[in-house]
C-alpha cells in the first residue's frame, strides 16, 4: 500500500461519503474528526517507506504512488507536516461543533485538506497548481452561508486564486525547460516573475492581499479562518518545494532580497493597518498577512536555518489562527454574521476575548508565547544580513504589538449601560478548546524545543535548501 492511499485518497473518499451525510452534522463531524485524529496519530507513529508487522500481517507503506506518469510522494520526512495538517483538521472539525455552518463545511473541508496534501506531495511541483485551485473551488460552497447576498469577497478570492494558475503553470514549465542550462538568464527572469506573481496571488502578498481582509468580513468567520490558514500554509509549503526543485535560481537572481523586501513591507503594512482597525473580524486577515511577512523573511535568509525556522513557526501559526478564529466566532453573538464585531465586544474579559488577545500576541511574536522563539531566531539571522530590513521588520512588529495593547485596553474597559452576555464558552466541548489552545500557545512559548526536532526532520524533505 502507498502512503498516498492513506493520507490523500482515504480522506478524499471519506469526504465524498460525508457529502451524503452532510445534514447529519454530529455524525459527519464525528467521522471527520475521528479520521483526522487517526491520520494524525498514524503519521506520528508509522515510519513511512518501511515494512510494518501487525501480528501475522505485514504491510509496506511505499512512499510513492504513480498516477498517469506523475508521482504522489510522501516520504518519512513529510511525517511532521502530515501531523500538522491533520492536526489542523482535527482542531477545526472539533471546533465546528454546535455552530450553524454550511452543511458543506465538513465534507468540503476534508476534501480540501486532502487536496492540499496532494499538492505538496505531487511531483513535479507544477501539478500542485491545479490541485490548489481545485481545493479553492471546493471551499466556496462551505464558505457561503444560507442567506448570503454579497459575493464580492468570494468573487475576488476565486479570481485572484484562479489567476495564479496560468502564471504558475507557464512559469513552471519554462523553468523546467531551462533546468539543464540555467545560464539563460533572459529566460529565467520572465519565468521567475510569472511564478513569483503566482505565489504572491496564492499567499495574498501585497498588493494582492485584499481578499484576506474581505473574506472574514463577507463570509462566516469560522470556515473562512479554516480555509485561509489551510490555503496559505499549503501554498507556503508548495513555494518551499519550488525553491527546493530549482535551487540554482537563487544563484542567478536576487530572490532572497526580493522576498525580504516583500516580507518587511507586509509586516509594516499589517502593523500600520492594525492601528486603524475598527472591526474585530479584520484581526484575522491582518494576523495572517503579518505572519506571512515573517514567513517570507525566514525563507529570504537562504540558509538551512531559515528553512528550519520557517517550519518551526508553522504549529504556532496554525494554533494561533485557529484560536483567533474560534474566539471571534464566539464573540459574534448575533446570528447576522454580516455585521461588524465592534472592538467593545472584547469587554468584559471572557475566555473568548482572552483567547483573541493571546492568539494576537502570539502571532505578533510576544515573548513567552508560541511564535516568539522562532521569530527571535528569524530576527537574529536577519540582523546578520541587513540592518535596514531588520529595522523595518521591528517597526512593523512594534506597530502590530501596539495594536495589541489597544485591544487589551478595550478588554479592560467596563461596559456602560448594556448587560454583558454571559460567558458560555466552557459549557460545550468545543468551548474547552479555547483554554486548551491558550495553554498550548503558552506551553509552546515556554518549551520552544518541542517543535525544533520535528522541524529539523521536516527540513530533510527540502534537501537542496537544508544543506
Amino acid at each position, binding site marked *: 500500500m502507498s502512503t498516498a492511499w492513506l493520507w490523500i485518497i482515504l480522506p478524499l473518499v471519506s469526504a465524498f461519503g460525508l457529502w451524503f451525510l452532510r445534514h447529519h452534522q454530529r455524525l459527519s463531524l464525528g467521522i471527520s474528526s475521528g479520521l483526522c485524529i487517526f491520520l494524525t496519530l498514524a503519521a506520528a507513529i508509522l515510519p513511512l517507506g518501511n515494512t510494518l508487522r501487525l501480528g501475522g500481517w505485514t504491510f509496506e507503506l511505499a512512499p510513492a504512488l504513480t498516477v498517469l506518469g506523475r508521482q504522489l510522494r510522501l516520504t518519512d520526512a513529510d511525517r511532521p507536516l502530515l501531523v500538522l495538517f491533520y492536526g489542523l483538521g482535527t482542531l477545526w472539525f472539533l471546533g465546528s461543533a454546535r455552530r450553524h455552518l454550511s452543511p458543506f463545511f465538513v465534507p468540503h473541508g476534508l476534501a480540501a485538506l486532502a487536496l492540499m496534501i496532494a499538492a505538496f506531495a505531487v511531483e513535479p511541483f507544477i501539478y500542485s497548481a*491545479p490541485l490548489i485551485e481545485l481545493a479553492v473551488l471546493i471551499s466556496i460552497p462551505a464558505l457561503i452561508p444560507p442567506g*448570503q447576498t454579497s459575493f464580492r469577497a*468570494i468573487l475576488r478570492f476565486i*479570481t485572484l486564486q484562479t489567476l495564479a494558475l496560468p502564471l504558475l503553470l507557464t512559469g513552471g514549465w519554462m523553468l523546467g525547460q531551462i533546468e539543464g542550462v540555467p545560464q539563460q538568464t533572459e529566460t529565467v527572469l520572465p519565468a521567475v516573475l510569472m511564478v513569483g506573481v503566482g505565489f504572491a496571488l496564492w499567499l495574498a502578498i501585497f498588493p494582492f492581499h485584499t481578499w484576506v481582509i474581505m473574506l472574514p468580513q463577507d463570509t462566516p468567520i469560522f470556515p473562512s479562518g479554516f480555509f485561509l490558514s489551510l490555503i496559505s500554509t499549503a501554498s507556503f509549503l508548495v513555494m518551499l518545494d519550488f525553491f527546493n526543485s530549482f535551487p540554482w535560481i537563487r544563484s542567478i537572481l536576487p530572490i532572497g532580497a526580493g522576498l525580504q523586501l516583500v516580507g518587511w513591507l507586509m509586516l509594516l503594512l499589517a502593523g500600520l493597518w492594525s492601528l486603524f482597525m475598527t472591526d474585530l473580524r479584520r484581526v484575522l486577515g491582518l494576523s495572517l498577512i503579518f505572519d506571512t511577512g515573517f514567513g517570507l523573511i525566514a525563507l529570504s535568509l537562504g540558509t538551512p536555518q531559515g528553512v528550519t525556522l520557517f517550519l518551526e513557526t508553522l504549529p504556532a501559526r496554525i494554533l494561533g489562527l485557529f484560536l483567533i478564529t474560534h474566539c471571534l466566532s464566539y464573540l459574534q453573538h448575533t446570528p447576522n454574521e454580516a455585521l461588524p464585531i465592534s472592538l467593545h465586544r472584547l469587554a468584559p474579559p471572557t475566555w473568548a476575548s482572552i483567547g483573541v488577545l493571546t492568539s494576537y500576541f502570539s502571532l505578533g511574536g510576544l515573548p513567552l508565547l508560541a511564535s516568539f522563539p522562532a521569530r527571535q531566531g528569524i530576527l537574529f539571522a536577519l540582523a546578520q544580513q541587513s540592518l535596514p530590513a531588520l529595522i523595518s521588520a521591528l517597526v512593523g512588529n512594534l506597530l502590530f504589538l501596539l495594536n495589541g495593547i489597544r485591544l487589551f485596553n478595550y478588554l479592560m474597559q467596563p461596559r456602560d449601560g448594556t448587560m454583558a452576555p454571559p460567558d458560555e464558552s466552557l459549557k460545550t466541548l468545543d468551548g474547552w478548546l479555547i483554554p486548551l489552545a491558550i495553554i498550548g500557545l503558552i506551553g509552546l512559548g515556554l518549551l520552544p524545543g518541542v517543535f525544533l526536532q520535528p522541524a529539523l526532520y521536516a527540513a530533510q524533505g527540502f534537501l537542496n535548501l537544508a544543506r
Partner: protein
Amino acid sequence: MNLAWIHLALFSLTALFALLETDPRFRLVAIAIQYAVLFWVVSTSLSLGLALVKLIVGWTAIALLGASLWNASRIRPASFSWSQQVFRLLSGGMIIGLSFSFSSSPSTWLPVEMLYLRSGITLAGCGLLMNGFSRHPSMAILGLLEVLSGFELIYAFLVDSVLMTGMLALVTLGLAGIGAYLTFLNSLPEGQR
C-alpha cells in the same frame, strides 16, 4: 492567408463581442464559439481526443452557466450607457493593441507561434476585463473561463499531458459549477435564501 490570422480574428471578434454585449445569453454564445475555435487550434498540437476534451468541457461549462441563468428569472440584460460601451470597446481594443505590442521575444521563451501567443493574450486580457466589469457572479466567472481558455490555447502548444488536460478540465468545470451555484443563490427570493 495564414490560418492563424483567421483564428486570431475569430478570437478577437468573439472576445470583443462578449465584452460589449449586454445580453448574457449572447455572451455565452460568443464564448461557446471561442471554445469551438480553441478546439480547431489545439487539435493541431494535441491529439484529437485531448482537443475534444477541451471542447466538450468548455461547452459543458457554458451549458452549466446557461442553465443557471435560464432559471434565474431575475437576471435581465444589463443596460450600459453609451460612454460605458465606448470605454469597454477602448479597453478591449487596448488589450488587442497590447498583444500586438509584444516584440518576438516571448516566442523565444515559449515555443508558440506569435499569432497564437497574441490570441492567448487577447483572450486572457478580455476575460480579465469581463471579470472586472461584471457584478453578476455568472458573468465574472465567464470572464475567468475566458482567461483560462486563453491560457489553455498557449499551454496546449507546450504540454500534451493527459493528466494536466484532465486537471484543467476539472478546474473549468469546477469554475462553471461555482458560477452556477452563485447564480442560483443570487436568484432565490429573499425568504428562501
